[in-house]
């Protein structure tokens, strides 16, 4: 009896599925947005969504003149759920494009789906290098509007040399994103004469760094840390209270605005690199930060900015296409040709459909900004590297010829 109930329910679900209007209006742009809204990654998904929706709200819910139908799906931080929801969005809701995902694994799971379903996919956060590098030929319907993991860390390596650091210890979360960040840094740092003398890999999600901090080599000039989500605050606190006084360089997520407001004064003076800082002193950014903070009560992180700018890019692209969405191929070609002054600075695209943008070297300072009356921690921009692509100065062919950055590439030649 209950089995019959099950099939009745199934039938009802099917009926609902069929009955939901596929009445697609002509001037409607249907966007399928995938973000984690529950589970451990929920806040990143919320920030992403808020950034995108802020742009829509500021523009009368239209992009390029088309009315936007924004369909948000919770992918719960899981690749398989993301795939299922993506298929629902494309096949049931008939969206023109899929946007979002957070984890590299989600990006790698959704990209093949975009190829299979011939639908545009814009990974507005997933930074996995190879999505727009060696694996790009498998993903003709993909264009990325955010960054590649190693992109900001190439210039950071150069910066480290310029500071006079000769030996550096890296401590990074033990997963692909960590490998790509460290790899990018190591490549440029060693190319300009530096040495990585030790690589430490705490598991992703480590909060107690007790096992790792005492092993940091004493003769290093500085530490490069790559921490994610809830790790950054604990790491630097424990490092400093363990008595470590040398400089700390951070990968993109170690000090970004997702974590900085919740960190303490021990971070003052720490330097990191990313393609965005909320302390960027440009009129566009000031406007964005003020509007975002007024509406959502927190300083925007790159999760918000990247999605705000994605909306802006889509706006510009649709405008160029004459106010309608034609085909994914045309859309991609058009977007690729855009040069935009976004909140994060000037953006254009390289031939591998990844942004060419400013990389900001930023230092944590405690001060008042943008007219706010409290002293807070901000990532002050101390140096800008303009027009940085995912290939740095190596050139596309040469860069793609080397393997993707991994735990063992570049090899740790100077490790004991």
């Amino acid at each position: 009896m209950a089995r019959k109930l099950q099939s009745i329910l199934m039938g009802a679900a099917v009926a609902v599925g069929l009955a939901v209007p596929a009445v697609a209006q002509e001037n409607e742009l249907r966007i399928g947005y995938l973000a984690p809204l529950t589970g451990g990654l929920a806040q990143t998904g919320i920030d992403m969504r808020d950034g995108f929706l802020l742009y829509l709200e500021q523009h009368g819910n239209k992009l390029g003149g088309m009315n936007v139908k924004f369909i948000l799906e919770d992918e719960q931080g899981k690749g398989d759920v993301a795939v299922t929801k993506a298929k629902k969005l494309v096949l049931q809701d008939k969206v023109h494009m899929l946007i979002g995902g957070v984890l590299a694994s989600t990006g790698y799971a959704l990209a093949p789906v975009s190829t299979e379903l011939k639908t545009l996919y814009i990974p507005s956060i997933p930074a996995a290098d190879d999505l727009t590098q060696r694996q790009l030929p498998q993903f003709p319907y993909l264009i990325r509007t955010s960054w590649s993991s190693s992109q900001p860390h190439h210039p950071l390596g150069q910066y480290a040399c310029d500071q006079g650091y000769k030996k550096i210890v890296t401590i990074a979360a033990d997963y692909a994103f960590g490998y790509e960040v460290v790899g990018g840094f190591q490549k440029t740092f060693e190319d300009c004469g530096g040495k990585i003398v030790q690589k430490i890999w705490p598991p992703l999600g480590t909060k107690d760094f007790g096992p790792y901090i005492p092993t940091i080599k004493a003769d290093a000039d500085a530490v490069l840390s790559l921490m994610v989500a809830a790790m950054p605050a604990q790491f630097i606190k424990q490092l400093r209270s363990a008595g470590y006084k040398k400089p700390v360089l951070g990968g993109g997520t170690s000090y970004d605005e997702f974590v900085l407001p919740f960190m303490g004064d021990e971070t003052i003076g720490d330097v990191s690199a990313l393609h965005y800082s909320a302390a960027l002193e440009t009129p566009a950014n000031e406007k964005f930060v003020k509007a975002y903070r007024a509406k959502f009560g927190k300083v925007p992180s790159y999760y918000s900015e990247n999605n705000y700018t994605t909306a802006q890019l889509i706006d510009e692209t649709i405008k160029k296409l004459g106010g309608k969405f034609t085909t994914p191929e045309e859309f991609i070609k058009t977007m690729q040709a855009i040069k935009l002054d976004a909140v994060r600075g000037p953006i254009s695209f390289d031939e591998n459909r990844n942004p060419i943008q400013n990389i900001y070297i930023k230092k944590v300072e405690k001060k008042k900004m943008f007219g706010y009356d409290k002293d807070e921690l901000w990532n002050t921009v101390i140096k800008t590297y303009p027009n940085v692509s995912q290939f740095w100065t190596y050139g596309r062919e040469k860069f793609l010829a080397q393997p993707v950055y991994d735990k063992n590439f570049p090899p740790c030649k100077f490790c004991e």
Partner: protein
Amino acid sequence: MNTQFWVVQAFNGVSYGALLFLVGAGLSLIFGVMRIVNLSHGSYFLLGGYVALSVIWITGSWALSIPIAVIAIALVGLVMERLFLRPEGRAKNIRDALIALGIALIIRLSLGRLLPQMIPGQIGNIVQVTLVVAIIAVPIYLVLQRISAVAIEADTLRQVLMTVGFAFLFQQAALDLWSGNPFDISPPPALTQSVSLGGMSFPLYRLFMIVGALVIGILLWLAMEKTRMGAMVRATVDDAQMARGVGIDTNKISMFIFALGAGMAALGGVIGGAFLGVYPGLDFEMLPIAFAVVIIGGMGSLGGAAIGALLVGLADNFGKALFPELAYFTLYAPMVLILALKPTGLFGRD
């Protein structure tokens, strides 16, 4: 790997163990007295941290946050125990009322979604919504009163699953109430210093954790060994039926122990909040580790929880430092071995 390495790592392992003791002792006692496997124990830990954060935001006092968080979560545990795990008499009515309200709320929200024209606004008019919910709740309540819930008490599996259901509810509620931002609790500046000894740096906060756990542990032990209440608790752990036979009110003991366990988990959450942070997912991260502590040490044994916590803290630390690829394996494999040899844990009794 010189002496310094071993000393610092041992110190770190012991301090982590101190935190685990707070979480594990409560779980162990709850199991010992009530034979309940509480999978929402990790949620108590997390909620303790969140409540402490709220207290700090409102009052600015870290010291105040500790007792308030402990008491608040002890109350939550108490409510859960009294209403859902072992309800008696009128408690069942209250429980049915709560459930009826919950169901009614969901129905109202669903209606709002499905028929937006008929029912104006979603949460727009709070009064109207409350009234509608109350009205819908009444018939549901009456129905629930007619259907008798089946007692959970001796049924391990159903207890486990019910506490998991609550864990999911708590997780979502925490996300909705506090947001998913990665919070950190800042202890008073005095505790953030380090002490230098023999060329090594020992963070004061870790010392605080060790001392705190020792104090709590000793207080608990004294309570168990030297007070009448403690004797009653020990009797109930040993043999609940006999205890009832000699006139011990095992119900009151259960209530007390459950609240105590929840409170201790919350204490762990507050103290851990400055060490691990307070963020979504922490509840399910702490849970298996808390169980490792309790299982290795033996369920129902306070001393076992202490030993178990120490062992897990040290194993975790040294495992990660020496065999990073096998990090979690070095934690759970010993647990399996111990269970295989002595299913009740090192110091457990059945």
